[in-house]
């Protein structure tokens, strides 16, 4: 037997649970212990709530989040397009605290000691954990766009690819742009957060121009060879609704910016815009590298798909956009929520001394607005495959909308209400 430490004490509690469940092979997880969750977005908020709910309060959960409220990336393009306000995409953490008993700490995490199982908080102090879930989202690789590698430049040329103050800045820039101006959005090479998101944004900015500044143009500078999601549906929307207003340029990788002249520099060309919206390449949130986790291409965290546990660091689970994706798996809020549930179920089993579920299923739906009342979707279902040790998309399932339609504009808002509630209510 190991020396008796605090964690062993907790494990004994869990073991007792395993014995109790032996008699009836009962359904409930008799898990105990303390789980720290870093990041309160689609993944982190979900795992925090589900750990508390499924353990019936048996597991203590601390959520560390730097922002005072949750602000949703999905639907934020409607704010950029002037169709929604920030209040419409902002949700409180109060229910996680008061209804679910999650300890929510507004702070930044400086580092994780994965051997001692402690995290260090920016405002001071350490927290110990039995298991930790990192849901840090992405951080931008400004070294890939050197001109943007300072705070002043980042206030002038925004990404607005994390919903928050930059969403508001981009909206203001569009409002103050003259009629006849040019808005340009750059897309990094895949994988990036929310594959259809940039094309949706182009549509909604074009819709705003069409109604208010009809001489203006939208230019998409895509580092990829082609449109990354829902291609025929986006092309049709551009052609039907925004003809001569949206220009798509493939293989246009923005390598740098001339901030003073709001100009994007590609390898052989440059492009001047009135409003320049550069989405730099991104990687797993910085905390993942700091914690020493195994990264694929030095960017995305490699995980065990049965538990979302890091492949090289026991006790550390990683979910959401930070993860190296399984085949065809998008980086989306919906998928992060699904990762959160997979991780919650696995962690409760592990804390109770049981193996994780060997057949997890994940699914994704994503709605994109091509106009105020016109939406297209893409859906996929991913079943765990033993041979590849990864979830694989189910052939013949999932797919896209037959055509853009008004019904799904309502469904998309229903989706948002329900997923926000599933995480935070």
């Amino acid at each position, binding site marked *: 037997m190991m020396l008796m430490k605090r964690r062993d004490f907790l*494990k004994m509690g869990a*073991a007792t649970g*395993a*014995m109790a*469940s*032996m008699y009836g*092979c*009962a*359904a409930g*997880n008799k898990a105990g212990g303390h789980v720290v969750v870093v990041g309160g977005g689609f993944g982190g908020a979900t795992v925090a*709530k*589900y750990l508390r*709910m*499924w353990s019936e309060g048996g597991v203590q959960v601390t959520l560390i989040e730097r922002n005072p409220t949750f602000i949703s990336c999905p639907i934020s393009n409607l704010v950029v397009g002037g169709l929604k306000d920030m209040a419409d995409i902002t949700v409180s953490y109060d229910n996680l605290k008061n209804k679910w008993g999650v300890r929510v700490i507004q702070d930044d995490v400086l580092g994780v000691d994965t051997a001692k199982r402690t995290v260090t908080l920016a405002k001071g102090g350490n927290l110990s954990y039995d298991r930790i879930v990192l849901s840090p989202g992405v951080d931008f690789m400004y070294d890939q766009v050197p001109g943007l590698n300072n705070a002043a430049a980042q206030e002038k040329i925004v990404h607005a690819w994390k919903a928050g103050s930059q969403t508001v800045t981009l909206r203001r820039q569009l409002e103050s742009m003259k009629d006849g101006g040019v808005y340009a959005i750059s897309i990094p090479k895949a994988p990036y957060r929310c594959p259809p998101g940039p094309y949706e944004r182009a549509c909604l900015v074009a819709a705003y121009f069409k109604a208010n500044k009809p001489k203006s143009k939208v230019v998409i500078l895509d580092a990829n060879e082609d449109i990354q999601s829902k291609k025929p549906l986006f092309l049709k929307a551009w052609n039907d609704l925004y003809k001569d207003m949206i220009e798509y340029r493939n293989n246009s990788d923005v390598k740098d910016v001339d901030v003073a002249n709001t100009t994007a520099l590609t390898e052989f060309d440059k492009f001047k815009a009135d409003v320049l919206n550069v989405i730099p390449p991104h990687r797993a949130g910085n905390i993942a590298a700091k914690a020493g986790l195994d990264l694929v291409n030095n960017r995305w965290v490699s995980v065990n798909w049965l538990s979302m546990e890091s492949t090289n660091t026991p006790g550390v689970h990683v979910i959401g956009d930070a993860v190296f994706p399984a085949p065809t798996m998008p980086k989306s809020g*919906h998928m992060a*929520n*699904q990762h959160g*549930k*997979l991780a919650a*179920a696995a962690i409760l*089993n592990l804390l109770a*001394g*049981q*193996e994780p*579920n*060997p*057949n*997890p*299923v*994940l*699914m994704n*739906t994503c709605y994109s607005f091509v106009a105020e009342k016109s939406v297209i*979707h893409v*859906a*996929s*279902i991913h*079943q765990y495959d033993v041979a590849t040790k990864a979830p694989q998309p*189910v052939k*013949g*399932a*999932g*797919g896209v*909308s037959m055509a853009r*339609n008004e*019904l*799904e504009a*309502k*469904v998309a*808002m*229903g*989706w948002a*209400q*329900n*997923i926000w*509630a*599933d995480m935070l*209510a």
Partner: protein
Amino acid sequence: MKLFAPITALCLMAASGISHAADPNLGRNLAATCANCHGTNGQAVAGSGMDALAGMEKTKTLQKLADFKSGVKPASIMHQIAKGYTDEQLDLIATYYAAQK
């Protein structure tokens, strides 16, 4: 933990006599994949336009899902999603939701 491995094995053996139940929470976990749209434990947000699945009779849920799969029931998206799950998985999901209040 090693001490308890035989116990787990016993549990698994006992369960293997019953259909689909190595992990007693399979139904719960599968149903949770629907909750993004249909609400936590099938409690959809009131007025959101999404079907609340909590307490829905199992046979009714299964019939709807079968109709989505076969294409009998028109849908915007559920015909594509239903095909992603096995019939056994859909049975577990419908069983779980029928038991929710």
